[in-house]
């Protein structure tokens, strides 16, 4: 089935590449969506069934795949609403959609991969397809962003590869067993801690480029800034999830070995520093997309703090991850509407959005509360759990800085958001603002509602999936 999926999505991609007709283009996209949805359902049905020896949809994979599919639908469809559609040649359209399809496909496969090296391959593929998306505008800025993104990603992926090699060294005599995640977890207690540590360092450092932590978060910011908003929505949500999957699977391996304490320390320090960096730039940036990108960094920092502190933090981390994906992708989609209204990404050029696009304005208002984890946002629940975990672990040295940084971030967010929403901007001509009809905002509202719903009324299957994901971890 996975082969069918991969092959057919490749076919779709290539068809999109060669096709020049807008209608067929639409149809192909819809077709791919159908494929994606059906395959998601399939994985959901056949959990923990090994496919083609290299793939196995375990709980984490299923969670991530469902998230991806839900987000992929609006991101692929909303493309048609954005103002810069007319300046696209059919050629670009085709390239864009082909890359989109490959990207989604690679993400799905990356989640599902049950071999550490296979995950790595698909991460590489996401990098390449992502770079096509970033390059979509073909101006100096996008070239620079693309170049940086590719380069930093390639270097990081080299790190990951080295990590994998070191891991194979860590296995010692048992290399015959193969580098399947379950096998690695099983064998982890007998690993050589020296090699394991080295391997973790390299793999962690490598995957931070996708997850968006220090040290390698840097290129991702530019990518999210320069990519078209739907692509950026994917970058800042599901792509980060892929990075998380990579790190989390490695974490699971280390969790069964003797070096867990050391790993947790590293993760906590890194995560807190990431939140700090995010704060520094949230105060500073004047570009809405970059601001959102930094806020993703902040959220990933919180997630990793949850992982590092353990206990109920594991549950909270995964919850936070998923909710953040929905929240952030919907925000990025809304940014597309903002760009449509104000023809600019600079915050000082925007203003009084509430007046020009009421539905969008209300969404932005609610989304502000959603993203800053102010109840009724579901993120509040996950952060609440993380705070509890920190208090329980007596980690006040983490808790207090974290909370103060979060407060500053909330303030910065509020400052910019309400500038956009209410304060009219100087020398902005109100002529030629096309009214965006409310249905375009509908999907954003749905995603927002999903965040609240999953936060406060999580369905039992959802909770069960998260529980099974973390069941093997020491509570």
């Amino acid at each position: 089935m996975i082969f069918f999926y991969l092959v057919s999505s490749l076919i779709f991609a290539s068809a999109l590449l060669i096709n020049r007709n807008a209608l067929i283009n639409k149809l192909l996209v819809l077709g791919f969506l159908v494929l994606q949805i059906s395959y998601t359902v399939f994985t959901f049905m056949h959990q923990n069934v090994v496919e083609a020896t290299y793939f196995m949809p375990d709980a984490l994979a299923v969670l991530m795949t469902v998230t991806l599919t839900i987000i992929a639908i609006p991101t692929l469809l909303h493309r048609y609403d954005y103002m810069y559609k007319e300046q696209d040649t059919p050629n670009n359209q085709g390239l864009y959609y082909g890359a989109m399809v490959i990207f989604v496909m690679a993400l799905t496969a990356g989640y599902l991969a049950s071999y550490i090296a296979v995950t790595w391959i698909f991460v590489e593929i996401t990098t390449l397809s992502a770079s096509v998306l970033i390059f979509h505008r073909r101006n100096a800025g996008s070239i620079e962003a693309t170049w940086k993104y590719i380069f930093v990603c390639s270097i990081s992926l080299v790190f990951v590869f080295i990590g994998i090699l070191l891991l194979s060294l860590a296995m010692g005599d048992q290399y015959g067993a193969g580098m399947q995640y379950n096998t690695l977890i099983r064998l982890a207690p007998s690993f050589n801690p020296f090699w394991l540590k080295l391997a973790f360092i390299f793999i962690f450092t490598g995957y931070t480029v996708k997850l968006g932590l220090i040290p390698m978060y840097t290129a991702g910011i530019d990518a999210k800034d320069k990519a078209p908003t739907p692509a950026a929505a994917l970058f800042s949500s599901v792509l980060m999830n892929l990075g998380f999957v990579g790190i989390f699977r490695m974490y699971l391996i280390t969790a069964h070995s003797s070096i867990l304490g050391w790993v947790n320390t590293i993760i906590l320090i890194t995560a807190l520093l990431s939140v700090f960096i995010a704060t520094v730039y949230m105060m500073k940036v004047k570009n809405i997309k970059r601001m959102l990108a930094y806020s993703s960094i902040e959220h990933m920092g919180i997630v990793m703090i949850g992982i590092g502190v353990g206990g109920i933090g594991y549950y909270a981390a995964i919850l936070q991850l998923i909710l953040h994906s929905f929240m952030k992708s919907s925000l990025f989609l809304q940014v597309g509407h903002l760009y449509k209204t104000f023809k600019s990404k600079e915050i000082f050029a925007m203003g009084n959005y509430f007046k020009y696009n009421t539905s969008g304005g209300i969404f932005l208002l609610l989304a502000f509360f959603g993203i800053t984890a102010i109840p009724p946002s579901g993120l509040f629940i996950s952060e609440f759990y993380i705070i509890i975990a920190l208090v329980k672990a007596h980690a006040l040295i983490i808790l207090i800085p974290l909370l103060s940084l979060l407060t500053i971030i909330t303030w910065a967010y509020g400052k910019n958001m309400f500038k956009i929403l209410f304060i009219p901007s100087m020398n902005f001509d109100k002529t030629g603002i096309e009214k965006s009809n409310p249905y375009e905002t509908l999907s954003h509202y749905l995603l927002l509602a999903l965040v609240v719903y999953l936060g406060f009324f999580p369905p039992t299957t959802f909770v069960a999936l998260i529980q099974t994901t973390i069941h093997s971890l020491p509570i």
Partner: protein
Amino acid sequence: MTTILLIVFIISLLYFAIANRLMTYVKILALQGILLFGVALIELIEINVLNLIFILFETIVVKTIAIPLFMRYIIKKNKITREAEPYVSYFASLISITLIIIATFMIANYIHDTHLNKIYFIAALSALFSGLYFISTRRKIITHVICYVVIENGVFILSLAVGHNMPMLVNLGILLDVFVSIFLLGIFVNKVGDVIDEGDVTQLSKIKD
């Protein structure tokens, strides 16, 4: 025998540190390719033939011939000045590369592993770190690509070290190497080259906060 080759490889890194012309870099790359070929030949002689041929092809054709030629072509095409123009003086780079190598030796000193010949580890890590070091101290974009290839060589060595256990990893490494190098260079030739006449990286640092 492999030890000697690898030591030569490490020395080539030192030479890389003090070399001041782009062409020299390219030559060093070719040299490293040959060295890797030798190492691979000796190390992996016993694995199956097809795989071996594949690896040798990679080392000889890609690393030794194709990439260096490609580089020369780019340098010619974009009329990049021949000088390397690093940020830090050659002497300083020499010192730091030496330090890196010593550090890797020290690290290797802590390894008690029967499966690994330490010299591989040393060569690989020093190649990695010095490659990173070069990237962050050289000004030209083309040098970044060259240094990336150096890093790739290091990775290749490491994969050779574990190669007899898991050939799959070696092949993967090779695939990555080929794929990414081609990709990077392709972009470079097509896009970056024409927007940026003189391949100075300062022109690629517009986006910042």
